[in-house]
């Protein structure tokens, strides 16, 4: 009986010895969380083109994961037409460069839709900033995703004044829609051109064009991608156009094209790429 009494006393003592420090630790932890915030995070936010879902960049992410030493966690969002956001995946605790993909419930082509998608991007963006408290980010847009980004940067980024964009990369973004002409201006281009002064001055942008032949990548005309210069030149800090030819340069293959993947690594992610790739990237013919 006596032995039992001792056991109970010891048990209670151990329990207090754990609960009390645990409680003080949790209070201190909450306090430090309050003051710290997550400012070191700089996500890479990707927007797919029309008719593509939030899984559009899976191949690209696998390609990037093959080479990169750093593991990026992936968060996917789909903004419904009602403005509600569906999340899947998550961002690792210590991941400072996660990939975030923003897709849309209504992902149709056409100016009216793209205008609306830029508004939805803004809703998702604000929600992300509120949740993750980042103040820097990089942006990647494929096809119409590039147009959505451009519109967003021109018109809506101002609504989040504390957040700055470091780099933008558009892949085969048809700034003049499907027009092959060098003179006709579509209404989409006119809108992008009209608001161009809203672009952040410190932005560095890369526009990548893929070409299967001399005029297009099979879907987007080269001349339409080339129209980007009228929007970006003299409005932002740096604007670079890169043309990729060769294998896998059909419009929908571009995001996982090996050459473009290495361009993304060097220019968008700012990785310390091996000199072999760096050299290869610099040997790009410019036309």
């Amino acid at each position, binding site marked *: 009986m006596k032995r039992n009494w001792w056991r109970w006393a010891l048990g209670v003592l151990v329990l207090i010895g*754990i609960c009390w420090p645990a409680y003080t630790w*949790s209070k201190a932890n909450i306090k430090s*969380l309050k003051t710290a915030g997550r400012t070191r995070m700089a996500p890479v936010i990707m927007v797919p083109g029309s008719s593509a879902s939030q899984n559009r960049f899976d191949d690209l992410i696998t390609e990037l994961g093959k080479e990169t030493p750093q593991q990026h*966690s992936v968060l996917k969002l789909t903004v419904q037409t009602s403005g509600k956001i569906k*999340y899947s995946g998550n961002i690792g605790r210590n991941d400072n460069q996660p990939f975030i993909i923003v897709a849309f419930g209504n992902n149709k082509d056409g100016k009216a839709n793209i205008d609306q998608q830029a508004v939805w991007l803004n809703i998702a963006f604000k929600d992300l900033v509120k949740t993750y408290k980042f103040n820097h980010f990089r942006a990647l847009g494929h096809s119409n995703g590039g147009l959505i980004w451009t519109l967003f940067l021109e018109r809506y980024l101002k609504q989040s004044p504390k957040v700055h964009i470091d780099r933008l990369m558009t892949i085969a973004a048809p700034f003049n829609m499907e027009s092959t002409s060098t003179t006709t201006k579509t209404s989409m281009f006119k809108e992008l051109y009209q608001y161009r002064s809203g672009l952040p001055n410190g932005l560095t942008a890369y526009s990548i064009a893929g070409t299967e032949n001399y005029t297009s990548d099979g879907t987007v005309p080269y001349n339409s991608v080339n129209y980007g210069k009228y929007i970006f030149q003299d409005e932002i800090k740096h604007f670079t156009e890169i043309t990729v030819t060769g294998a896998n340069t059909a419009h929908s293959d571009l995001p996982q094209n090996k050459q473009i993947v290495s361009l993304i690594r060097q220019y968008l992610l700012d990785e310390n790429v091996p000199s072999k790739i760096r050299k290869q990237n610099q040997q790009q013919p410019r036309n």
Partner: protein
Amino acid sequence: MSLIKQFANQLLNWETWLNRRRYFHALRDTLTLLFPLVLIGAFINVFNQAIFQKSGFIAQIYHLNRWFPGFKALTTYTTMLSLTLNGVIAVVAAFTAANFAVRAQRRDNLLAGLTAAVSFCLLNFNYAAFTKQNQPTSSRFLEQNLGSQGIFLALLVGLITGWLFNHLAFKTHTHQLIETRTHLLSRAKENWLPMTVTLLGFSLLSYGISFVSKNGLNGLFYTVFRLPFFNPGSAFLNIVSVTFLSNFFWVIGIIGPIDFSGNSSVSTVQNLEYALQHGSAWGAPNPITLHTIFDSFANVGGPGMTLALVIAILWRSHNADFRTVAKASWLPSLFNFNQPLLVGLPIMFSPILAIPFLMAPLASLLITWSALKLGVMPPVVYPVGRTMPGFLVGWLGSGGDWRALLVSLVNLSVATAIYLPFILLENRVVEGRPTDET
């Protein structure tokens, strides 16, 4: 009342019947034999993940990393222990399962075991090692499949190997205390057929799978088993079914489709941001998620509320085996490592224990959900660790709300009450076998 009695008798009969099946018996024997290894592994996990890891519970509350001498070295040392011992447990399981499966038929158990272990490794070859020639660091085996994740597949490989040996070996095996070379060579002669067939079969299977799945057969298993677990959202029934399915997988040895990972999901981060801004967990935007009700309240002592099982056994069980296992495993169970109980009792593949193992978490989910819906307590919003004792998670995760602690304790008592009848039922088995008691 008689209906319940009838059901209980049925259950007991079924269990006895199952135990008489040769391969099922081998399976249970394998698990029990693995118990000491798994127990040591669990203690190492406690040292590694709860004590000598910066994010470990004990390390955090006592700030061990600031003052404990040699903390970093101990982190490395215990991580090494954990990765090696727990990292190859499935290979050991394959060996043991084949070994037991052929014993009753008096076949060569050692050769069968070795063949099974090699076959299991064959199935987990990393074919990416061929393509990534410029990266010599990539491993030749899919190491993550050789640990407890791979136990289900390992048992299967072991039993299949055992079956092949039982049917293809030319002669029965005679055990010799002191081996002679002649006997050893005759063992080779009598068993070359099952060995070749097993190795050939599994290697071809492995190569075939490599065209479909990058992570081997096990990876394929896990993708299929994970399919139902995408984003259960906030619907209560979804969370319940996901939990049920996940715990069911644990019972049959498929460990961990749902991981304790809720800390980083978007809804959790949103909750945390809200709480930090408002200074309280009340009114957080996502009160009902997998994290707030399953991770935090229905996982006390590991999946299946196994801490309640430990309590029930130590309190009322007359089964000496059960008591031995429970006495050895309560400490890891406090930090939510319940693998020793799974293989020691075993809970895995035991119909009697599987029922409360599946029901107890559901009861906890229901209680927690009601408490949140009725506004009795705030949800868990602050970060909690994987090794935080289960009954403290609600309290610490809600910023020290005593009502959450109360709900945790209610959950634990209800879970104990659910386990108790089954422990009493098991007592009847023991009392029916007086030889065990003496």
